[in-house]
């Protein structure tokens, strides 16, 4: 019987429940979309990396002491001598083996700009179809010093045809080559954004590596020999500097980096899904509260005719179950669409990831339904419990109203939550970790939501004042309506508060970061120009050291310092070390010594003040260290310098680096101009010198600042865009609350219309109410957000974010935007109210 009633109620309140379901859908679809996207992309990468296992079984590569994660990692790889290839071929069980040459080669498009480089590597290689996944489709293999072959995808993108002149950048300046042929990569022919340029082997060795050497050797096992066996045999045969692993292992290693990144990305995205569903839970809570309040009489009647409390609770929870099921199912479907959208979005940002058919795992389904159902049921539980408390006698009373409860309990619980949340947040910021920060923020949100009814009346009174003043009776009615049920107003506003708070937090952090960076750069940027390669990691980020010499000869240049970045294990941790000429390092960074010297000698490092403090290191401390090639050394601290964001935390001389890194490539040049020459003049001269290197970027001081700023701003924009989802859900909440309020106040609206309120005035009234609620929510959010931003900035002060900057104008803009949100949210409820038939409205019971 109760089940039947539940179904009838679901059918009777279709529209209101649909709005609630949309809140569930938006949250769950984001979770489902992220999971589907991550699974699909993972599978695509597996397929991509497994291509290699189809053509060969074992790969021989340079041994590394540790798997570095940063740029410069590749520089440590030792080239494999041709003699090793002969050794491998002689190993019993090897049916075939070839040496492969790989490195950086950017194909310059017809517009003079290098293709790709935004993430996926730009590969240069020695041509060979044996034991490889490359197959010529048109033309011939590259032969001689002046021929190149490129992949089909790049050929199509650039419009190059066989016979065309194509400029290619390798280590040196761009050189013209004749396009001899076009080839496909792997079985599918997709490249996932990677560009390929192939040369004759000897040419590739000279351009990309060193004559007669290989980057890796791949081998195919004879029948009856397993890849693992073969890897073991080859491993013992090749010199100690190299290792042999199965192709499967190599694929997994390669994929693990990407998967780690994807894991980070999906956690990042899932966070926003969780935020959305958290915001959605407020709306679910509010809708069910209002539905229960409106059905007080009906529920009392049920109780009067003998329904038990638990039956009433179950009937309300049953409705929630229905909403949760429908919402989650639709969310899963929408998630599939979202996953496709995400792919398109990343593609638009230049991250052209490989593709495969969409993967929807049972895990995705379980998570989507689990989260959707649990959140809906939990949010509806409290209204359901209230419903059960309605006394049967309420059915007989004319003026039914839920018993007003005291706010004291709320104040108490909210206060406790606030203290607990603040404590957790502080603990997290003091170093306990991000989980504490998140948990603390969650508790603070709940606390503010619980406490907000306490100050909803006075605050909305102030917010409503302009409306009273400006719009007379309409404004006064609107402002009173916003105040009449502080719990409802607060719950509606709280949904908006969360999204706004997070956006405000990000804004405060971003401006603080930018201000801190500006301050730091002003103090530590001695260089007038920086020259760097366009690629973001790997060999693409490096270029020939001869550029540095060229630049140093440009008139007006006082000094040009070539920079490299390396990872060195010092103590137990991998550290990012800046490498350069010790004599020339101080000037471009305005390096200031705190103790010791800035002049480096072999076997010495410089560290910054906070590193010295954190590790309790000082001048003369001897640090046991290890380089990427496995060699160990003891590094002595020669000096401690004032924290310098441009230089980083560790500085090392070139000589020590050169001994352990076979690649002579550099990663940046810092240029200081002579004081008597204008910056513009030097910049023009530098640009002319760099003309043959289309992959290099020349930045002056303001460009460098802009770059840091744009990195921060890009992240902020991305996060804000993702948070807009939760704002969207909050808008739905306002729509829902207003629509339900309009239904609740049908008779009142009828009366207003009867005594002469026009439709337009009625619409304005609802619009103003909506604006007051929205701005109230945004105000709460901005206040909480500034608090969070300040707390996090304080927590990061020692990590370089030492300036607190509150973007007052931007935050005021958010409040204004909230007003617009209010206007938008009111459109539909206001139209509904204005369309009401006056007579029927008055006659409504």
């Amino acid at each position, binding site marked *: 019987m109760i089940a039947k009633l539940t179904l009838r109620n679901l059918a009777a309140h279709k529209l209101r429940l649909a709005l609630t379901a949309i809140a569930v859908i938006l949250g769950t679809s984001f979770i489902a979309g992220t999971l589907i996207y991550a699974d699909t992309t993972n599978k695509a990468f597996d397929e991509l990396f497994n291509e290699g296992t189809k053509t060969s079984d074992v790969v021989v590569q340079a041994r590394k002491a540790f798997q570095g994660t940063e740029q410069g990692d590749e520089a440590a790889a030792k080239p494999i001598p041709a003699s090793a290839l002969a050794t491998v071929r002689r190993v019993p069980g090897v049916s075939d083996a070839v040496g492969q040459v790989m490195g950086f080669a950017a194909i310059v498009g017809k517009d003079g700009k290098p293709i790709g480089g935004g993430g996926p590597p730009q590969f240069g290689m020695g041509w060979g179809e044996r034991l490889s996944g490359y197959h010529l489709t048109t033309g011939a293999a590259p032969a001689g010093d002046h021929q190149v072959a490129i992949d089909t995808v790049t050929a199509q993108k650039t419009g190059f045809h066989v016979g065309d002149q194509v400029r290619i950048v390798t280590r040196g300046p761009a050189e013209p080559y004749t396009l001899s042929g076009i080839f496909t990569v792997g079985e599918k022919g997709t490249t996932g954004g990677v560009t390929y340029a192939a040369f004759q082997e000897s040419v590739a060795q000279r351009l990309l590596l060193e004559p007669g050497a290989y980057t890796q050797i791949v081998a195919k096992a004879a029948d009856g020999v397993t890849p693992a066996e073969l890897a073991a045999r080859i491993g013992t045969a090749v010199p100690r500097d190299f290792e042999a692993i199965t192709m499967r292992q190599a694929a997994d290693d390669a994929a693990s980096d990407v998967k780690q990144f994807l894991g980070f990305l999906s956690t990042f995205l899932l966070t926003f899904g969780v935020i959305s569903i958290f915001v959605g839970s407020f709306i679910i809570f509010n809708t069910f509260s209002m539905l229960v309040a409106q059905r007080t009489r009906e529920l009392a009647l049920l109780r009067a005719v003998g329904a038990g409390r638990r039956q009433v609770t179950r009937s309300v929870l049953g409705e929630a179950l229905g909403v949760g099921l429908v919402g989650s199912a639709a969310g899963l479907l929408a998630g599939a669409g979202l996953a496709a959208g995400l792919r398109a979005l990343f593609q638009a940002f230049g991250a052209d990831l490989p593709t495969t058919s969409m993967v929807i795992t049972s895990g995705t389904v379980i998570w989507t339904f689990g989260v959707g159902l649990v959140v809906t049921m939990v949010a509806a539980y409290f209204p359901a419990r209230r419903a059960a408390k309605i006394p049967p006698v309420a059915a007989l009373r004319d003026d039914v109203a839920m018993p007003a409860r005291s706010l004291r309990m709320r104040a108490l619980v909210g206060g406790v939550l606030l203290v607990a949340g603040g404590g957790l947040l502080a603990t997290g910021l003091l170093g306990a970790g991000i989980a504490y920060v998140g948990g603390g923020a969650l508790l603070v949100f709940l606390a503010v939501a619980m406490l907000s009814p306490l100050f909803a009346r006075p605050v909305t009174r102030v917010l409503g004042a302009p409306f009273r003043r400006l719009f*007379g*009776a*309409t404004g*006064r*009615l609107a402002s*009173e*309506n916003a*105040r*009449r049920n502080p719990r409802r107003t607060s719950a509606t506003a709280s949904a908006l508060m969360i999204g706004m708070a997070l956006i405000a937090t990000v804004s405060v952090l971003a401006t603080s970061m930018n201000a801190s960076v500006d301050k730091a750069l002003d103090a530590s940027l001695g260089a007038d120009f920086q020259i760097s390669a366009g690629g973001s990691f790997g060999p693409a980020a490096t270029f020939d050291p001869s550029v540095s010499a060229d630049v140093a000869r440009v008139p007006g240049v006082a000094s040009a310092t070539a920079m490299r970045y390396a990872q060195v294990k010092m103590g137990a941790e991998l550290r990012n070390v800046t490498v350069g000429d010790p004599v020339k390092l101080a000037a471009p960074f305005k390096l200031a010594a705190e103790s010791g010297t800035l002049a480096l000698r072999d076997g010495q490092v410089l560290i910054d003040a906070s590193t010295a403090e954190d590790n309790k290191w000082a001048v003369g401390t001897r640090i046991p260290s290890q380089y990427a090639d496995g060699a160990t050394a003891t590094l002595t601290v020669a000096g401690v310098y004032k924290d310098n964001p441009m230089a980083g935390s560790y500085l090392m001389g070139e000589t020590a680096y050169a001994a352990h890194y076979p690649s002579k490539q550099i990663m940046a040049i810092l240029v200081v101009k002579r004081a008597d020459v204008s910056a513009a003049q030097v910049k023009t001269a530098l640009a002319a010198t760099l003309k043959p290197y289309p992959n290099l970027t020349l930045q002056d001081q303001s460009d460098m600042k802009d770059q840091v700023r744009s990195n921060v701003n890009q992240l902020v924009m991305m996060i804000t865009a993702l948070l807009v989802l939760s704002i969207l859900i909050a808008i739905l909440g306002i729509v829902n609350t207003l629509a339900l309020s309009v239904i609740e106040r049908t*008779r*009142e609206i009828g*009366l*207003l*219309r*009867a*005594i*002469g*309120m*026009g*439709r337009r*005035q009625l619409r304005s009234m609802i619009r103003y109410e909506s604006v007051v609620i929205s701005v109230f929510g945004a105000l709460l959010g901005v206040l909480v957000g500034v608090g969070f931003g300040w707390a996090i900035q304080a927590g990061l002060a020692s990590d370089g974010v030492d300036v607190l900057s509150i973007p007052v104008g931007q935050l005021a803009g958010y409040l204004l935007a909230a007003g617009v949100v209010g206007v938008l949210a009111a459109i539909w409820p206001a139209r509904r109210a204005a369309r009401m038939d*006056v*007579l029927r409205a*008055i006659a409504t019971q």
Partner: protein
Amino acid sequence: MTYVTAEILAPTADDAFRTAGPLAARASGVTKVYGMGDASVTALDNVTLGIPSGRFTAIMGPSGSGKSTLMHCLAGLDAVSSGQVYVGDVELTRLDDKRLTRLRRDRIGFVFQSFNLIPTLTALENITLPMDIAGVKPDPAWLDTVIDTVGLRPRLGHRPSELSGGQQQRVACARALAGKPDIIFADEPTGNLDSRSGAEVLAFLRSSVREMGQTVVMVTHDPVAASYADLVVFLADGRIVDQLAAPTADRVLERMKGLDR
């Protein structure tokens, strides 16, 4: 059978009202049909009626006689199926929603059976609400007079939930009067009140007619309430079937019994 048709009575009623002076509102051949085809119900059937200015008119009739519909049509709350309705010289049946709303606001006052007040506004704010909506200042002297007449001065700052049913209804009457409307429509104003509170409200409506020259039209099914009026119009099955001047409760009851038969 003492059934009298509207066609016979109408001229008589018109004559009676005409002698009483100018008309504040009138209905001419008004028919109101609800629904379509087989399911249609004729609520008003060719009703012609004048509401004399400065008088207290009661519209009576059994349930379903069409008395509320007649009032709704006269007040511009409901559209007629055919015929014309005038308030003063304005033909309501020709006005669009916007003009009708303005007419209700500026020239008509309402008192309903229940839910007459906006719960979020004080008594005084409720009284001045129609003028506030119109954006005009109330005449302070007149407002004072009205407030004193309904005897609510000490309760002006209270919200409706803090007032008794009788007090709420007196606030509603004050609101109807405060804008000096051409005509006040009261729909069963005493329906939800005990007899003492009801008598207060009725006495107040009558005194507003006698002393302030207000025009009041009241729909009721209570013969005692009708006895406060100057004229009573009887409706049955959507037609005007009788009228009575200077009514007493007993005479009204007698006529009603005749209608019910």
